[in-house]
């Protein structure tokens, strides 16, 4: 079954009238409607799926966003909000009968408050630009998704983006204080505050990760953290993946919360090594990168304790980055892992499940078996500290049927994640990509409640329709069985 089908909308939108209405709000060059202008917006980071929006609106002020949404609301026009378009789950895939609302022109850093340690930002500010602007004050913004050079803070909030430092510093939801959103009716609302909590329901948490389904985010106040006095990274190599997994548990059991704790398997190690020459041990079955940060004394003590723990974990090699330069080299391989895989395969499909860490060995075993069954190679990159697994399935889209086969394989990996008590998405979001797997993770009552939440904000269902939460009808069609924390065994599991 094709992953995403757009719902039919009748009557169809009168494009000419809509363009005319938007021209009363926006300058002519901020309303794109010719096919060649629309093409750059046909997909996001999940480029296997593309179609053109009816038109693209590029407001450059909050007032314009409000006016555009009022026009859409009055005319029942679907709206898909888009930041930098780096999302990996098709959350910003356009609607063919809708407006693609790009927030790319709202790029101002409105205010940095060094004493309160906050930054007030427009949604189009790039993630990395926040930390760069905060650096003169000795501060930074902690969540660091791998796309941080390009991705925007508005998109980060919509997806509740993570990164490699989540175990210690949290996700986006832990690092924002206030949002200004525009509702589908065009109303500007303030959610959260510049204080540590706000009266009423926690809509700040609800909005975070809501994938553009509830409102359009037009301003974000983030919390800034002090730059750590020192950070040091340790690289450990193992001759089997399970030993690496046990080492992660041992570090945490010792009461240490590393700033980053990353694992790569042999294929990922070698692809990274070919690409950026980080000096990783090519014969290792797995490596762990463990970063410790804090005060100078804290880091010294933790480095020696982690080394002690690792030496009891049957490692084949242990290295401590001697200086900042070597630390950067150690990380370079990990950070380049995805493009490195891109070099050795025409295409790759990045999965994003989270599992309880202790189930890692069996999940990797299942993935290996599936890899043989489907005849598709998998490289594994793992945010080991928080259990977020990124299996990369290597395929060639030019081979007929291979994408469909890859998706089926990926779907099974996600079902395993649910089966062992995890989730179908740790940080990439559901979007259109994992809409079927939502039927595996949640039962009809939960999905119905989600639709109720959506209606509380968007009664007409105009914001990003068809994404994030499947209809019950769709789940029936998909035929998935709701798998619940391993209590109902997934019947197909035996043949893996």
């Amino acid at each position, binding site marked *: 079954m094709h992953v995403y089908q757009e719902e039919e909308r009748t009557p169809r939108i009168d494009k000419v009238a809509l363009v005319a209405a938007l021209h009363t709000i926006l300058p002519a060059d901020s309303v794109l409607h010719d096919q060649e202008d629309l093409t750059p917006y046909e997909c996001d980071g999940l480029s296997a799926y593309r179609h053109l929006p009816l038109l693209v609106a590029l407001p450059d002020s909050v007032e314009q966003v409000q006016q555009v949404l009022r026009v859409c609301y009055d005319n029942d026009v679907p709206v898909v909000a888009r930041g930098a378009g780096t999302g990996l789950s098709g959350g910003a895939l356009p609607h063919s009968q809708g407006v693609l609302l790009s927030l790319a022109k709202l790029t101002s850093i409105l205010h940095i408050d060094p004493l*309160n*340690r906050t930054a007030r930002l427009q949604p189009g500010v790039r993630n990395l630009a926040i930390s760069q602007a905060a650096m003169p004050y000795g*501060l930074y913004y902690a969540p660091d998704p791998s796309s941080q050079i390009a991705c925007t803070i508005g998109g980060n909030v919509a997806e509740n983006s993570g990164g490699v430092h989540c175990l210690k510093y949290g996700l986006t939801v832990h690092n924002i204080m206030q949002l200004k959103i525009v509702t589908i009716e065009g109303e500007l609302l303030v959610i959260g505050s510049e204080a540590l909590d706000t009266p009423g329901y926690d809509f700040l*948490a609800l909005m975070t*990760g809501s994938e553009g389904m509830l409102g359009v985010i037009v301003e974000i106040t983030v919390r800034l953290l002090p730059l750590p006095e020192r950070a040091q990274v340790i690289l450990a190599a193992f001759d089997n993946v399970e030993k690496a997994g046990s080492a992660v548990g041992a570090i945490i059991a010792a009461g240490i919360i590393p700033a980053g704790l990353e694992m790569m398997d042999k294929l990922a190690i070698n692809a990274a090594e070919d690409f950026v020459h980080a000096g990783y041990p090519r014969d290792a079955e797995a490596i762990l990168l463990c970063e410790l940060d804090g005060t100078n004394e804290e880091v010294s003590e933790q480095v020696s304790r982690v080394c002690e723990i690792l030496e009891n974990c049957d490692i084949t090699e242990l290295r401590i980055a001697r200086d900042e330069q070597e630390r950067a080299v150690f990380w370079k391989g990990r950070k380049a892992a995805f493009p490195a895989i891109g070099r050795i395969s025409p295409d790759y499909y990045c999965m994003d499940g989270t599992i309880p860490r202790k189930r890692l060995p069996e999940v990797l075993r299942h993935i290996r078996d599936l890899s043989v069954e489907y005849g598709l190679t998998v490289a594994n990159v793992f945010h080991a500290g928080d259990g977020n697994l990124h299996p990369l399935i290597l395929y060639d889209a030019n081979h007929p049927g291979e994408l469909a086969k890859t998706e089926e394989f990926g779907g099974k990996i996600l079902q395993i994640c649910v089966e062992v*008590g995890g989730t179908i998405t740790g940080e990439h979001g559901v979007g259109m990509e994992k809409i079927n797997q939502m039927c595996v993770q949640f039962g009809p*009552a939960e999905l119905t409640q989600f639709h109720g939440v959506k*209606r509380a904000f968007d009664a007409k269902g105009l914001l990003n329709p068809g994404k994030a939460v499947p209809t019950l009808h769709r789940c029936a069609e998909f035929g998935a069985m709701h798998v619940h924390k391993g209590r109902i065994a997934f019947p197909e599991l035996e043949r893996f």
Partner: protein
Amino acid sequence: MTDIAAQLKEQFDAAIADKRPLNIVGGNSKAFYGRMAVGDTLAVSAHRGIVNYEPTELVITARAGTPLVDIEQALAEHRQMLPFEPPHFGDTATLGGTIACGFSGPRRPYSGSARDFVLGSKIINGKGEVLRFGGEVIKNVAGYDVSRMMTGALGTLGMLLEVSLQVLPRAAFETTLVQQCSQKEALQRMNVWAATSLPLSATCHVDDGLYVRLSGAEAAVAASVKKIGGDRVDDDDEFWQDLREHRLPFFNGVDNLWRMTLPSAAPPLNLSGCQLIEWGGGQRWLASDDDAQAIRNSAIVIGGHATHYRGGQREGDVFQPLSQGLWRLHQNMKHAFDPQGILNPGRLYPGL
């Protein structure tokens, strides 16, 4: 360890059939909080027990009626803790009540709030449906974050049956220093410190004493003590617990206690009565008989809000009234979870 979810659901179904409001009660330790409770008592405290605790996964799941002390003890056996250091306000405090109130203690500004550590929940909504959201993993973005929205909702959206929380290791070493200074100076110091990598874990200014707790490796704490200076506080655990539980002399005999949350560097409030500052300046307790509206306005103008924590007119507004737009969304959300309005009606806001 008892699981009375089925019984609770029966009581729910009966209440729904009769459109009879329910007053959800855990340990009854926070009965003082919020607006006046109405409805038939639904006792949850027998629904108790730790369902799953995996120290190396940093996650605990327990039934809502589990006493907070049981959870803290289980965690302490593995040198772990609830990072938001919740107040109990009585021996009977339960996990469910703590999360429903969204209470966090002294560690909150440096580690996170109750909602920050909520990973998942099992609830009964106002339609009598048993629903499960989130899970037991730290990174999870499947579906709306309903579990975090339950935190602080005072049971008005759903009754908690189970809660999964992220936990953290206890620090190897902790010490507390006290310095003599004014409120103004304390606010400056706390905010300047928070912008450095000092291992702060709690701060409080009361009666011209600025208390600061440092947590971490022994060498790191020792180095930080040298950096910031001050006198060591003996029995510092007791001080922070007394602060958390409102047992410090500051709280004695207070008729009207207000909780203000403000941007942390906001200047001292110009209000009559006494103030105690904690959370690095982000939370301020005010013992004052000033006019409620004047107190609320003084918080609003600097970007914060005020809660009439104890001693207010509980038929009126305890929490800061919401803007019109937000109020409409609250009503819509209430309707989505509890269309007949049977769950703790009016405990948070009139009509909700």
